[in-house]
């Protein structure tokens, strides 16, 4: 082994990346070469010196700030369109085709099949939308009559086509997508039902925000929220909605029930312990403050006061505990 190779191996050996056999060769070389032995000492020295610039754990504030900023940016991103998902899938497929040429042919066949099927379904939808044309042409497909006259009708799927024997009649089963609109008082059970549905299922954060805001206002203004399931809907939103603003509104709506209902209290304690948004955790502390009799509240406040990553939340929890000595 010459000294040049030895110098390279000294570095890899210093970081534990040298194979045993090469390490043995290196040791033999170093035993007889003072210059390379000195080189190894210098390498060891560099390692010690480099540690004078240590790797520090990021502060909790920095982590919380970064997380908050990221969540806001993610919330602001428009949802992916179907063609973006499709593009991505195709992109993945194309990439893997380099390794699997047979799959390429298969994909082409599937693509062609999907195109034909898509065209066929499109033609069916077109036919369903223009019933008078079908009738004029004597087509056996009867025109789907909307439930409400004048309402637009979309056919989302044709599930079966059965022709009756010895006859020109045919039975077609299909599904419709019919947009509807309803207007009424917030006390109307149907309206409330729709708002609850929107609070849980809408893909739009704006729609969820509006729905939860209205439901929360109902609860805060003293209307009955327990019987109709609004309280439950708000608890689900507080626990699972991905938008912090929507969760904050749900929390506000639950405030009137925190003293009476242990399930509501548990949902708020969950938010205090686990919600990713420090503003919601802080608001939860304020809401729980008046609840003095529940030991779980004390425990959670103590735990948050000692362990929460956010120093502000730790301080607020301690303040609440010190302000209310009877709950300690």
């Amino acid at each position: 082994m010459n000294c040049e190779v030895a110098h390279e191996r000294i570095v890899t050996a210093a970081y534990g990346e040298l194979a045993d056999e090469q390490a043995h060769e290196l040791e033999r070389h170093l035993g007889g070469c003072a210059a390379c032995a000195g080189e190894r000492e210098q390498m060891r020295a560099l390692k010690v010196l480099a540690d004078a610039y240590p790797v520090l754990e990021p502060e909790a504030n920095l982590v919380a700030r970064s997380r908050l900023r990221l969540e806001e940016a993610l919330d602001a991103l428009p949802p992916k369109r179907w063609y973006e998902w499709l593009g991505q899938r195709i992109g993945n497929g194309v990439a893997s085709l380099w390794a699997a040429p047979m799959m390429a042919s298969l994909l082409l066949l599937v693509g062609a099949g999907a195109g034909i099927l898509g065209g066929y379904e499109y033609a069916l939808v077109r036919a369903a939308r223009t019933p008078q044309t079908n009738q004029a042409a004597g087509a056996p497909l009867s025109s789907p009559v909307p439930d409400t006259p004048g309402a637009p009708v979309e056919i989302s799927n044709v599930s079966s086509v059965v022709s009756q024997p010895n006859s020109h009649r045919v039975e077609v089963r299909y599904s419709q997508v019919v947009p509807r609109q309803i207007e009424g008082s917030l006390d109307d059970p149907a309206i409330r039902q729709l708002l609850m549905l929107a609070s849980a299922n809408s893909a739009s954060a704006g729609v969820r925000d509006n729905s939860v805001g209205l439901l929360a206002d109902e609860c805060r203004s003293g209307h009955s929220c327990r019987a109709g399931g609004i309280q439950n809907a708000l608890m689900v939103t507080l626990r699972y909605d991905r938008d912090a603003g929507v969760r904050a509104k749900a929390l506000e709506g639950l405030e009137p029930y925190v003293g009476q209902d242990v399930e509501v209290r548990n949902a708020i304690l969950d938010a205090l312990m686990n919600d990713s948004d420090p503003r919601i955790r802080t608001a939860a502390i304020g809401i729980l403050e008046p609840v003095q009799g529940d030991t779980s509240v004390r425990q959670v406040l103590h735990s948050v006061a000692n362990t929460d990553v956010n120093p502000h939340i730790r301080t607020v929890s301690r303040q609440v505990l010190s302000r209310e000595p009877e709950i300690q």
Partner: protein
Amino acid sequence: MATTAMGGTKTAAERMRDRAPEMELIRQAQAGSRAAFDTLVRQYEQQVLRLALHLTGSEHDAEDIYQEAFLKAYRYLGNFRFECSFYTWIYRIVTNLCLDQMRRRKTRREDRSVFLDHSGVEFDLLAAVSDDRSFSNPAKELDRKLLGDRIQDALGKLTPRERMVFELKHYQGLRLRTIGEMLNTTEETAKNTLFRATKKLRANLAGLRR
């Protein structure tokens, strides 16, 4: 030194089994689950910030890199095909962003060739490098903070790629093979880059005179 060494002595099957919950999370995130993506972010955010913070030396830059890295991950998660670990994938994004940031900074940076100690006197770390006495505990010879700054300056004189390889090897404790994967290069190239980095570092630290 931080140690986040990967691999260890686990078999491939064991590693796959360990990764199963994470793979499920990735699949859910690919299918559009924001909650699954948030969980992935929480699993890696400390490591991402620690790396970016140490490489850039600036909280502000580290925060920007964190933001950009996870937004990129979110946008391109659909392209992740489980050919490497998610750890390698996310580190690849972060290291690329850090490299860009270091390259930008390198063009702006003033080249400081002389360093002063507390009293304003130029000092020599070469003595420390060649002198066992001081190297046995450099913190006793110089104020640790000041020394840290000098090391940071010496690191800043490496090319961004050398700096990155040294960072990932020395400070993050990754295997050269993993570093090669992250930087889209071979283990051999990563090893050569590490060798050049250590050589330059020693020269940079030895070039400071008292």
